[in-house]
Protein backbone atom coordinates (compact mmCIF):
# COMPACT_ATOMS: atom_id res chain seq x y z
CA UNK A 1 0.00 0.00 0.00
CA UNK A 2 2.81 2.44 0.95
CA UNK A 3 4.70 1.53 -2.21
CA UNK A 4 1.59 2.11 -4.28
CA UNK A 5 0.96 5.49 -2.62
CA UNK A 6 4.61 6.44 -3.28
CA UNK A 7 4.25 5.54 -6.95
CA UNK A 8 1.07 7.62 -7.20
CA UNK A 9 2.78 10.62 -5.55
CA UNK A 10 5.73 10.31 -7.96
CA UNK A 11 3.52 9.98 -11.05
CA UNK A 12 1.27 12.84 -9.98
CA UNK A 13 4.27 15.10 -9.30
CA UNK A 14 5.69 14.28 -12.72
CA UNK A 15 2.36 14.97 -14.44
CA UNK A 16 1.96 18.37 -12.72
CA UNK A 17 5.57 19.22 -13.64
CA UNK A 18 4.76 18.35 -17.27
CA UNK A 19 1.59 20.47 -17.16
CA UNK A 20 3.58 23.46 -15.85
CA UNK A 21 6.16 22.93 -18.60
CA UNK A 22 3.44 23.04 -21.25
CA UNK A 23 1.55 25.93 -19.62
CA UNK A 24 3.48 28.67 -21.41
CA UNK A 25 0.54 29.63 -23.70
CA UNK A 26 -1.63 30.64 -20.71
CA UNK A 27 1.16 32.62 -19.04
CA UNK A 28 1.48 35.27 -21.72
CA UNK A 29 -1.12 37.64 -20.30
CA UNK A 30 -0.66 39.15 -16.83
CA UNK A 31 -4.42 39.40 -16.36
CA UNK A 32 -6.70 38.58 -14.63
CA UNK A 33 -5.59 39.53 -11.14
CA UNK A 34 -6.44 36.85 -8.57
CA UNK A 35 -6.54 38.27 -5.01
CA UNK A 36 -4.38 41.09 -6.36
CA UNK A 37 -1.78 38.76 -7.87
CA UNK A 38 -1.33 38.68 -11.68
CA UNK A 39 -2.43 35.31 -13.06
CA UNK A 40 1.00 33.93 -14.21
CA UNK A 41 2.58 34.59 -10.79
CA UNK A 42 -0.45 33.16 -8.98
CA UNK A 43 -0.46 30.06 -11.24
CA UNK A 44 3.27 29.37 -10.83
CA UNK A 45 3.15 29.92 -7.05
CA UNK A 46 0.08 27.69 -6.67
CA UNK A 47 1.45 24.81 -8.76
CA UNK A 48 4.76 25.06 -6.93
CA UNK A 49 3.08 24.79 -3.53
CA UNK A 50 1.15 21.72 -4.74
CA UNK A 51 4.42 20.17 -5.96
CA UNK A 52 6.17 20.86 -2.63
CA UNK A 53 3.31 19.18 -0.73
CA UNK A 54 3.42 16.17 -3.06
CA UNK A 55 7.20 16.11 -2.75
CA UNK A 56 7.08 16.07 1.05
CA UNK A 57 4.49 13.28 0.89
CA UNK A 58 6.78 11.31 -1.44
CA UNK A 59 9.72 11.73 0.96
CA UNK A 60 7.58 10.54 3.89
CA UNK A 61 6.36 7.49 1.95
CA UNK A 62 9.88 6.70 0.73
CA UNK A 63 11.10 6.65 4.32
CA UNK A 64 8.18 4.41 5.34
CA UNK A 65 9.07 1.96 2.55
CA UNK A 66 12.60 1.69 3.92
CA UNK A 67 11.53 0.87 7.48
Amino acid at each position, binding site marked *: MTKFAFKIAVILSFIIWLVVMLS*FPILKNPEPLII*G*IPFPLFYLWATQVILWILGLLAVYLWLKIGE
Partner: protein
Amino acid sequence: MAIEAQINSGIVLGYMVLMIILGYFAGRRTKPTAEDFYLMERKIGPVLILFTYLATLQSMVAFLAATATYATHGVAFLVLPVSQGIILLLLTLLTGWKFRELAKEHGMLTQGDFIYYRYGSKAGQFITGLAGYIFNLFYIGTQPIGMAYILWALGLMDYNTALLLVGGVTLVYTLIGGLRAVVWTDFIQGILLLLFLVVAAFFILAPIGGIGGAISLAYSKNPALFSLPGPAKFYRDGIWVSLFIALPLGIWLSPHLFVRHYMARDRKSLAMIPIAVILSQCIMWVVVSPLLGLITGPLLGPVKDWRIPRADLAIPFLLEKFAPWWVIGPVLAGAMAAGMSTVDSQMLLSGQIFVRDIYEPLFKKRISDKGAIQLGRVCIIITTIIAIIIALNPPPLFIDLMIGVAFAGFAQFFPGLIIGLYWKRLNKYGVIVGLIAGLATVTGIQLYQMIYKVGAIGYFMDVHNGVWGLVVNIVLAVIVSLITKVEQK
Protein backbone atom coordinates in the same frame (compact mmCIF):
# COMPACT_ATOMS: atom_id res chain seq x y z
CA MET B 1 36.00 55.08 5.56
CA ALA B 2 32.96 56.00 7.68
CA ILE B 3 32.49 54.28 11.03
CA GLU B 4 29.41 52.41 9.68
CA ALA B 5 31.42 50.96 6.80
CA GLN B 6 34.22 49.99 9.21
CA ILE B 7 31.78 48.10 11.45
CA ASN B 8 30.25 46.32 8.43
CA SER B 9 33.75 45.42 7.19
CA GLY B 10 34.50 44.11 10.69
CA ILE B 11 31.41 41.87 10.63
CA VAL B 12 32.38 40.43 7.25
CA LEU B 13 36.00 39.90 8.34
CA GLY B 14 34.78 38.34 11.62
CA TYR B 15 32.70 35.90 9.60
CA MET B 16 35.79 35.00 7.52
CA VAL B 17 37.85 34.39 10.67
CA LEU B 18 35.07 32.16 12.08
CA MET B 19 35.21 30.04 8.91
CA ILE B 20 38.99 29.57 9.25
CA ILE B 21 38.64 28.61 12.93
CA LEU B 22 35.99 26.02 12.00
CA GLY B 23 38.31 24.74 9.26
CA TYR B 24 41.15 24.41 11.77
CA PHE B 25 39.11 22.35 14.24
CA ALA B 26 37.69 20.25 11.41
CA GLY B 27 41.23 19.59 10.20
CA ARG B 28 42.25 18.34 13.64
CA ARG B 29 39.49 15.72 13.51
CA THR B 30 40.13 14.65 9.93
CA LYS B 31 41.74 11.24 9.51
CA PRO B 32 44.50 10.84 6.90
CA THR B 33 42.36 8.75 4.53
CA ALA B 34 40.90 9.82 1.19
CA GLU B 35 37.47 8.56 2.26
CA ASP B 36 37.49 10.79 5.34
CA PHE B 37 39.08 13.86 3.68
CA TYR B 38 36.71 13.79 0.70
CA LEU B 39 33.55 12.07 2.07
CA MET B 40 33.69 12.17 5.91
CA GLU B 41 33.67 8.35 5.86
CA ARG B 42 30.14 8.49 4.37
CA LYS B 43 28.70 9.11 7.83
CA ILE B 44 26.99 12.48 7.51
CA GLY B 45 23.79 12.61 9.54
CA PRO B 46 20.44 14.24 8.64
CA VAL B 47 21.01 17.76 10.02
CA LEU B 48 24.45 18.26 8.50
CA ILE B 49 23.45 16.79 5.13
CA LEU B 50 20.37 19.05 5.03
CA PHE B 51 22.48 22.16 5.45
CA THR B 52 25.43 21.08 3.34
CA TYR B 53 23.15 20.27 0.38
CA LEU B 54 21.12 23.45 0.85
CA ALA B 55 24.18 25.69 1.19
CA THR B 56 25.97 24.01 -1.71
CA LEU B 57 22.92 24.16 -3.98
CA GLN B 58 22.21 27.80 -3.23
CA SER B 59 25.14 29.89 -4.36
CA MET B 60 25.79 33.56 -5.13
CA VAL B 61 23.33 33.05 -7.94
CA ALA B 62 20.51 32.49 -5.47
CA PHE B 63 21.57 35.43 -3.34
CA LEU B 64 22.45 38.06 -5.93
CA ALA B 65 21.98 37.10 -9.55
CA ALA B 66 18.49 35.63 -9.09
CA THR B 67 17.17 39.00 -7.89
CA ALA B 68 18.92 40.71 -10.80
CA THR B 69 17.44 38.27 -13.28
CA TYR B 70 13.92 38.62 -11.87
CA ALA B 71 14.40 42.40 -12.21
CA THR B 72 15.28 41.99 -15.88
CA HIS B 73 12.90 39.19 -16.91
CA GLY B 74 10.14 39.28 -14.28
CA VAL B 75 8.18 36.17 -13.30
CA ALA B 76 9.29 34.42 -16.52
CA PHE B 77 12.49 33.61 -14.62
CA LEU B 78 10.42 31.46 -12.24
CA VAL B 79 11.18 28.85 -14.90
CA LEU B 80 14.40 28.21 -13.00
CA PRO B 81 12.86 26.94 -9.74
CA VAL B 82 9.65 25.47 -11.19
CA SER B 83 11.52 23.48 -13.84
CA GLN B 84 13.87 21.68 -11.49
CA GLY B 85 12.71 21.52 -7.86
CA ILE B 86 10.44 18.50 -8.05
CA ILE B 87 12.70 16.66 -10.50
CA LEU B 88 15.72 17.03 -8.21
CA LEU B 89 13.57 15.59 -5.43
CA LEU B 90 12.33 12.66 -7.54
CA LEU B 91 15.80 11.85 -8.91
CA THR B 92 17.15 11.61 -5.36
CA LEU B 93 14.28 9.43 -4.16
CA LEU B 94 14.34 7.14 -7.22
CA THR B 95 18.10 6.76 -7.75
CA GLY B 96 19.98 8.43 -4.88
CA TRP B 97 19.88 5.43 -2.57
CA LYS B 98 21.12 3.06 -5.31
CA PHE B 99 24.07 5.34 -5.98
CA ARG B 100 24.81 5.65 -2.27
CA GLU B 101 24.74 1.86 -1.75
CA LEU B 102 26.95 1.15 -4.76
CA ALA B 103 29.35 3.93 -3.77
CA LYS B 104 29.71 2.55 -0.26
CA GLU B 105 30.11 -1.04 -1.40
CA HIS B 106 32.74 -0.24 -4.06
CA GLY B 107 34.53 2.70 -2.43
CA MET B 108 33.43 5.26 -5.03
CA LEU B 109 34.45 8.89 -4.56
CA THR B 110 33.30 10.43 -7.84
CA GLN B 111 30.87 10.10 -10.76
CA GLY B 112 33.78 8.74 -12.81
CA ASP B 113 34.15 5.92 -10.28
CA PHE B 114 30.59 4.85 -11.07
CA ILE B 115 31.35 4.90 -14.81
CA TYR B 116 34.35 2.63 -14.22
CA TYR B 117 32.38 0.30 -11.98
CA ARG B 118 29.35 0.10 -14.31
CA TYR B 119 31.10 -0.09 -17.70
CA GLY B 120 34.63 -1.22 -16.75
CA SER B 121 36.13 1.62 -18.77
CA LYS B 122 39.02 3.75 -17.54
CA ALA B 123 38.61 5.89 -20.68
CA GLY B 124 34.97 6.56 -19.76
CA GLN B 125 36.03 7.45 -16.23
CA PHE B 126 38.73 9.80 -17.55
CA ILE B 127 36.40 11.62 -19.98
CA THR B 128 33.70 11.96 -17.32
CA GLY B 129 36.24 13.34 -14.84
CA LEU B 130 37.81 15.74 -17.32
CA ALA B 131 34.42 17.08 -18.43
CA GLY B 132 33.29 17.41 -14.82
CA TYR B 133 36.48 19.26 -13.93
CA ILE B 134 36.32 21.69 -16.87
CA PHE B 135 32.62 22.56 -16.59
CA ASN B 136 33.03 22.82 -12.82
CA LEU B 137 35.63 25.53 -13.47
CA PHE B 138 33.03 27.73 -15.19
CA TYR B 139 30.78 27.28 -12.18
CA ILE B 140 33.54 27.99 -9.64
CA GLY B 141 34.61 31.04 -11.62
CA THR B 142 31.18 32.64 -11.19
CA GLN B 143 31.13 32.51 -7.38
CA PRO B 144 34.01 34.80 -6.30
CA ILE B 145 32.78 37.40 -8.81
CA GLY B 146 29.57 38.00 -6.88
CA MET B 147 31.28 37.97 -3.49
CA ALA B 148 33.96 40.43 -4.57
CA TYR B 149 31.44 42.71 -6.28
CA ILE B 150 29.32 43.31 -3.23
CA LEU B 151 32.32 44.08 -1.00
CA TRP B 152 33.57 46.48 -3.65
CA ALA B 153 30.19 48.05 -4.45
CA LEU B 154 29.57 48.99 -0.83
CA GLY B 155 33.00 50.60 -0.55
CA LEU B 156 34.43 48.04 1.88
CA MET B 157 37.45 47.18 -0.30
CA ASP B 158 38.50 47.19 -3.95
CA TYR B 159 37.40 44.37 -6.29
CA ASN B 160 40.77 42.60 -6.59
CA THR B 161 41.43 42.66 -2.82
CA ALA B 162 37.94 41.30 -2.19
CA LEU B 163 38.54 38.57 -4.76
CA LEU B 164 41.80 37.51 -3.10
CA LEU B 165 40.25 37.65 0.36
CA VAL B 166 37.21 35.46 -0.37
CA GLY B 167 39.22 33.07 -2.57
CA GLY B 168 42.01 32.85 0.01
CA VAL B 169 39.79 32.24 3.05
CA THR B 170 37.76 29.55 1.28
CA LEU B 171 40.95 27.92 0.05
CA VAL B 172 42.55 27.86 3.51
CA TYR B 173 39.71 26.18 5.38
CA THR B 174 39.04 23.70 2.56
CA LEU B 175 42.71 22.69 2.40
CA ILE B 176 42.97 22.26 6.15
CA GLY B 177 39.78 20.40 6.93
CA GLY B 178 38.62 18.75 3.68
CA LEU B 179 34.96 17.78 3.57
CA ARG B 180 34.57 18.03 7.35
CA ALA B 181 35.47 21.74 7.16
CA VAL B 182 33.18 22.18 4.16
CA VAL B 183 30.23 20.51 5.92
CA TRP B 184 30.74 22.29 9.25
CA THR B 185 31.02 25.68 7.58
CA ASP B 186 28.05 24.81 5.34
CA PHE B 187 25.95 24.34 8.47
CA ILE B 188 26.67 27.91 9.62
CA GLN B 189 26.55 29.26 6.06
CA GLY B 190 23.21 27.57 5.28
CA ILE B 191 21.59 29.20 8.30
CA LEU B 192 23.19 32.59 7.55
CA LEU B 193 22.20 32.72 3.91
CA LEU B 194 18.55 31.80 4.53
CA LEU B 195 18.20 34.01 7.58
CA PHE B 196 19.82 37.13 6.15
CA LEU B 197 18.11 36.96 2.78
CA VAL B 198 14.82 37.02 4.69
CA VAL B 199 16.11 39.87 6.89
CA ALA B 200 17.13 41.82 3.77
CA ALA B 201 13.70 41.22 2.23
CA PHE B 202 11.97 42.38 5.42
CA PHE B 203 13.80 45.70 5.54
CA ILE B 204 13.34 46.34 1.82
CA LEU B 205 9.70 45.24 1.51
CA ALA B 206 8.29 46.64 4.78
CA PRO B 207 8.36 50.33 3.74
CA ILE B 208 6.44 49.58 0.52
CA GLY B 209 3.65 47.55 2.11
CA GLY B 210 5.05 44.01 2.20
CA ILE B 211 4.33 41.33 -0.41
CA GLY B 212 1.04 42.90 -1.61
CA GLY B 213 2.62 46.35 -1.84
CA ALA B 214 5.59 44.98 -3.80
CA ILE B 215 3.35 43.23 -6.34
CA SER B 216 1.08 46.31 -6.75
CA LEU B 217 4.06 48.62 -7.18
CA ALA B 218 5.76 46.42 -9.77
CA TYR B 219 2.51 45.77 -11.66
CA SER B 220 1.62 49.46 -11.82
CA LYS B 221 5.06 50.35 -13.22
CA ASN B 222 5.58 47.46 -15.63
CA PRO B 223 2.87 44.77 -16.16
CA ALA B 224 5.15 42.99 -18.65
CA LEU B 225 7.16 41.79 -15.63
CA PHE B 226 4.28 39.44 -14.86
CA SER B 227 3.95 37.48 -18.10
CA LEU B 228 5.94 35.43 -20.58
CA PRO B 229 8.26 36.03 -22.32
CA GLY B 230 9.10 38.90 -19.90
CA PRO B 231 9.97 42.56 -20.60
CA ALA B 232 13.15 41.66 -22.50
CA LYS B 233 11.15 39.04 -24.49
CA PHE B 234 13.77 36.45 -23.60
CA TYR B 235 11.87 33.47 -22.17
CA ARG B 236 10.23 32.47 -25.44
CA ASP B 237 8.42 29.12 -25.81
CA GLY B 238 11.44 27.06 -26.86
CA ILE B 239 13.68 28.43 -24.12
CA TRP B 240 10.96 27.88 -21.50
CA VAL B 241 10.39 24.23 -22.48
CA SER B 242 14.06 23.33 -23.02
CA LEU B 243 15.01 24.69 -19.58
CA PHE B 244 12.61 22.15 -18.05
CA ILE B 245 14.84 19.42 -19.51
CA ALA B 246 18.33 20.88 -19.25
CA LEU B 247 18.21 22.49 -15.80
CA PRO B 248 17.05 19.62 -13.56
CA LEU B 249 19.55 17.25 -15.14
CA GLY B 250 22.36 19.82 -15.23
CA ILE B 251 21.88 20.74 -11.59
CA TRP B 252 21.30 17.26 -10.15
CA LEU B 253 24.26 15.86 -12.08
CA SER B 254 26.60 18.72 -11.05
CA PRO B 255 29.48 16.72 -9.57
CA HIS B 256 29.65 18.67 -6.28
CA LEU B 257 25.93 18.03 -5.63
CA PHE B 258 25.84 14.47 -6.97
CA VAL B 259 28.59 13.21 -4.63
CA ARG B 260 26.55 14.39 -1.64
CA HIS B 261 24.43 11.26 -2.19
CA TYR B 262 27.58 9.20 -1.52
CA MET B 263 28.03 10.86 1.89
CA ALA B 264 24.67 10.04 3.49
CA ARG B 265 24.88 7.90 6.62
CA ASP B 266 21.48 6.24 6.10
CA ARG B 267 18.10 6.61 4.36
CA LYS B 268 16.99 9.29 6.81
CA SER B 269 20.06 11.36 5.94
CA LEU B 270 19.48 10.90 2.22
CA ALA B 271 15.85 12.00 2.62
CA MET B 272 17.12 15.36 3.84
CA ILE B 273 18.42 16.17 0.35
CA PRO B 274 14.89 16.65 -1.10
CA ILE B 275 13.92 18.58 2.04
CA ALA B 276 16.89 20.91 1.45
CA VAL B 277 15.69 21.48 -2.12
CA ILE B 278 12.16 22.36 -1.02
CA LEU B 279 13.24 24.54 1.90
CA SER B 280 15.69 26.63 -0.07
CA GLN B 281 13.43 26.97 -3.10
CA CYS B 282 10.47 27.94 -0.98
CA ILE B 283 12.34 30.70 0.86
CA MET B 284 14.79 31.94 -1.76
CA TRP B 285 13.84 31.25 -5.36
CA VAL B 286 10.07 31.33 -5.37
CA VAL B 287 9.26 34.06 -2.85
CA VAL B 288 12.07 36.38 -1.72
CA SER B 289 14.17 36.73 -4.89
CA PRO B 290 11.18 37.30 -7.24
CA LEU B 291 9.69 39.94 -4.94
CA LEU B 292 13.00 41.79 -4.57
CA GLY B 293 13.64 41.51 -8.29
CA LEU B 294 10.20 42.81 -9.27
CA ILE B 295 10.61 45.99 -7.22
CA THR B 296 14.23 46.64 -8.20
CA GLY B 297 13.30 48.61 -11.33
CA PRO B 298 10.57 50.75 -9.71
CA LEU B 299 12.73 51.53 -6.67
CA LEU B 300 16.21 51.91 -8.15
CA GLY B 301 15.47 52.97 -11.75
CA PRO B 302 17.28 51.66 -14.83
CA VAL B 303 20.52 49.73 -14.20
CA LYS B 304 22.49 52.09 -16.46
CA ASP B 305 21.81 54.92 -14.00
CA TRP B 306 23.15 53.03 -10.96
CA ARG B 307 26.42 54.07 -9.32
CA ILE B 308 27.90 50.83 -10.65
CA PRO B 309 25.74 49.70 -13.60
CA ARG B 310 25.58 45.95 -12.83
CA ALA B 311 22.21 44.23 -12.33
CA ASP B 312 23.88 41.72 -9.95
CA LEU B 313 24.19 44.50 -7.39
CA ALA B 314 20.44 44.98 -6.92
CA ILE B 315 20.32 43.64 -3.32
CA PRO B 316 23.32 45.64 -2.03
CA PHE B 317 21.94 48.84 -3.56
CA LEU B 318 18.40 48.18 -2.28
CA LEU B 319 19.88 47.63 1.18
CA GLU B 320 21.98 50.75 0.91
CA LYS B 321 18.88 52.76 0.06
CA PHE B 322 16.24 51.26 2.38
CA ALA B 323 17.83 49.31 5.24
CA PRO B 324 19.56 50.74 8.34
CA TRP B 325 23.35 50.61 8.04
CA TRP B 326 23.73 47.92 10.73
CA VAL B 327 21.73 45.43 8.63
CA ILE B 328 24.19 45.59 5.74
CA GLY B 329 27.13 43.82 7.47
CA PRO B 330 25.21 40.70 8.55
CA VAL B 331 23.42 40.46 5.17
CA LEU B 332 26.78 40.71 3.42
CA ALA B 333 28.02 37.89 5.64
CA GLY B 334 24.97 35.92 4.45
CA ALA B 335 25.91 36.66 0.84
CA MET B 336 29.49 35.57 1.50
CA ALA B 337 28.09 32.39 3.04
CA ALA B 338 26.05 31.69 -0.10
CA GLY B 339 29.10 31.98 -2.33
CA MET B 340 31.68 30.32 -0.09
CA SER B 341 29.47 27.34 0.75
CA THR B 342 29.22 26.46 -2.94
CA VAL B 343 32.75 27.24 -3.99
CA ASP B 344 34.36 25.26 -1.13
CA SER B 345 32.53 22.10 -2.24
CA GLN B 346 33.56 22.69 -5.83
CA MET B 347 37.19 23.27 -4.88
CA LEU B 348 37.28 20.07 -2.86
CA LEU B 349 35.58 18.18 -5.64
CA SER B 350 38.11 19.40 -8.19
CA GLY B 351 40.82 17.67 -6.12
CA GLN B 352 38.67 14.55 -5.76
CA ILE B 353 38.06 14.36 -9.53
CA PHE B 354 41.66 15.08 -10.46
CA VAL B 355 43.05 12.34 -8.25
CA ARG B 356 40.49 9.62 -8.93
CA ASP B 357 39.26 10.28 -12.48
CA ILE B 358 42.16 12.03 -14.20
CA TYR B 359 45.49 11.14 -12.57
CA GLU B 360 44.86 7.48 -11.70
CA PRO B 361 43.39 6.39 -15.09
CA LEU B 362 46.04 8.41 -16.96
CA PHE B 363 49.03 6.94 -15.11
CA LYS B 364 47.33 3.57 -14.55
CA LYS B 365 48.14 3.39 -10.86
CA ARG B 366 46.28 3.65 -7.59
CA ILE B 367 47.55 6.41 -5.28
CA SER B 368 47.93 5.89 -1.54
CA ASP B 369 45.54 7.71 0.80
CA LYS B 370 48.25 10.17 1.79
CA GLY B 371 49.13 10.82 -1.85
CA ALA B 372 45.47 11.26 -2.79
CA ILE B 373 45.06 13.98 -0.17
CA GLN B 374 48.33 15.75 -1.05
CA LEU B 375 47.74 15.66 -4.80
CA GLY B 376 44.14 16.75 -4.24
CA ARG B 377 45.35 19.76 -2.21
CA VAL B 378 47.73 20.81 -5.01
CA CYS B 379 44.86 20.55 -7.51
CA ILE B 380 42.58 22.58 -5.22
CA ILE B 381 45.18 25.39 -5.10
CA ILE B 382 45.60 25.38 -8.90
CA THR B 383 41.82 25.35 -9.42
CA THR B 384 41.37 28.29 -7.07
CA ILE B 385 44.01 30.30 -8.96
CA ILE B 386 42.25 29.56 -12.28
CA ALA B 387 38.86 30.54 -10.77
CA ILE B 388 40.31 33.85 -9.56
CA ILE B 389 41.81 34.51 -13.00
CA ILE B 390 38.35 33.92 -14.56
CA ALA B 391 36.83 36.23 -11.95
CA LEU B 392 39.35 39.00 -12.70
CA ASN B 393 37.63 39.52 -16.03
CA PRO B 394 33.99 38.84 -15.15
CA PRO B 395 31.23 38.32 -17.74
CA PRO B 396 28.38 40.91 -17.81
CA LEU B 397 25.90 38.76 -15.86
CA PHE B 398 27.52 35.72 -14.29
CA ILE B 399 24.33 33.70 -14.12
CA ASP B 400 24.49 33.34 -17.95
CA LEU B 401 27.81 31.56 -17.70
CA MET B 402 26.53 29.14 -15.10
CA ILE B 403 23.14 28.25 -16.55
CA GLY B 404 24.27 28.39 -20.17
CA VAL B 405 27.60 26.63 -20.05
CA ALA B 406 28.14 24.67 -16.83
CA PHE B 407 24.72 23.03 -16.59
CA ALA B 408 24.73 22.18 -20.31
CA GLY B 409 27.93 20.22 -19.72
CA PHE B 410 26.81 18.45 -16.54
CA ALA B 411 23.54 17.36 -18.21
CA GLN B 412 25.62 15.21 -20.58
CA PHE B 413 26.30 12.71 -17.76
CA PHE B 414 22.63 11.64 -17.92
CA PRO B 415 22.97 8.55 -20.16
CA GLY B 416 26.07 7.15 -18.44
CA LEU B 417 24.79 7.65 -14.91
CA ILE B 418 20.98 7.46 -14.98
CA ILE B 419 20.09 5.44 -18.10
CA GLY B 420 22.97 3.07 -17.34
CA LEU B 421 21.54 2.43 -13.90
CA TYR B 422 18.42 0.84 -15.42
CA TRP B 423 19.21 -0.20 -19.00
CA LYS B 424 21.62 -3.15 -18.95
CA ARG B 425 22.30 -3.01 -22.69
CA LEU B 426 24.00 0.39 -22.47
CA ASN B 427 27.73 -0.30 -22.80
CA LYS B 428 31.03 1.54 -22.55
CA TYR B 429 31.26 2.28 -26.27
CA GLY B 430 27.80 3.81 -26.29
CA VAL B 431 28.47 5.89 -23.20
CA ILE B 432 31.86 7.16 -24.41
CA VAL B 433 30.71 7.98 -27.97
CA GLY B 434 27.51 9.62 -26.68
CA LEU B 435 29.34 11.63 -24.01
CA ILE B 436 32.04 12.89 -26.37
CA ALA B 437 29.44 13.79 -29.02
CA GLY B 438 27.20 15.51 -26.44
CA LEU B 439 30.07 17.53 -25.00
CA ALA B 440 31.33 18.39 -28.50
CA THR B 441 27.83 19.58 -29.47
CA VAL B 442 27.51 21.78 -26.38
CA THR B 443 31.03 23.21 -26.78
CA GLY B 444 30.78 23.56 -30.56
CA ILE B 445 27.50 25.49 -30.41
CA GLN B 446 28.87 27.69 -27.65
CA LEU B 447 32.05 28.49 -29.60
CA TYR B 448 30.03 29.15 -32.77
CA GLN B 449 27.81 31.56 -30.84
CA MET B 450 30.77 33.35 -29.29
CA ILE B 451 32.71 33.68 -32.56
CA TYR B 452 29.77 34.76 -34.71
CA LYS B 453 27.88 36.51 -31.85
CA VAL B 454 24.70 34.54 -32.54
CA GLY B 455 21.94 34.35 -29.91
CA ALA B 456 22.23 34.43 -26.11
CA ILE B 457 24.89 32.52 -24.16
CA GLY B 458 23.73 28.93 -23.77
CA TYR B 459 20.83 28.89 -26.26
CA PHE B 460 20.77 28.05 -29.95
CA MET B 461 17.60 28.48 -32.00
CA ASP B 462 15.73 29.13 -28.74
CA VAL B 463 16.71 25.75 -27.30
CA HIS B 464 19.15 25.33 -24.39
CA ASN B 465 22.51 23.97 -25.58
CA GLY B 466 22.29 21.21 -22.98
CA VAL B 467 19.23 19.82 -24.79
CA TRP B 468 20.99 19.82 -28.19
CA GLY B 469 23.87 17.95 -26.57
CA LEU B 470 21.54 15.51 -24.81
CA VAL B 471 19.66 14.60 -28.00
CA VAL B 472 22.91 13.80 -29.84
CA ASN B 473 24.32 12.08 -26.74
CA ILE B 474 21.33 9.79 -26.06
CA VAL B 475 20.74 8.84 -29.72
CA LEU B 476 24.39 7.87 -30.23
CA ALA B 477 24.67 6.11 -26.85
CA VAL B 478 21.66 3.93 -27.70
CA ILE B 479 22.64 3.20 -31.33
CA VAL B 480 26.28 2.39 -30.52
CA SER B 481 25.25 0.20 -27.58
CA LEU B 482 22.82 -1.73 -29.77
CA ILE B 483 25.37 -2.40 -32.54
CA THR B 484 28.29 -3.32 -30.27
CA LYS B 485 28.54 -6.20 -27.84
CA VAL B 486 30.49 -6.07 -24.60
CA GLU B 487 30.72 -8.40 -21.61
CA GLN B 488 29.32 -6.36 -18.74
CA LYS B 489 29.02 -6.56 -14.95
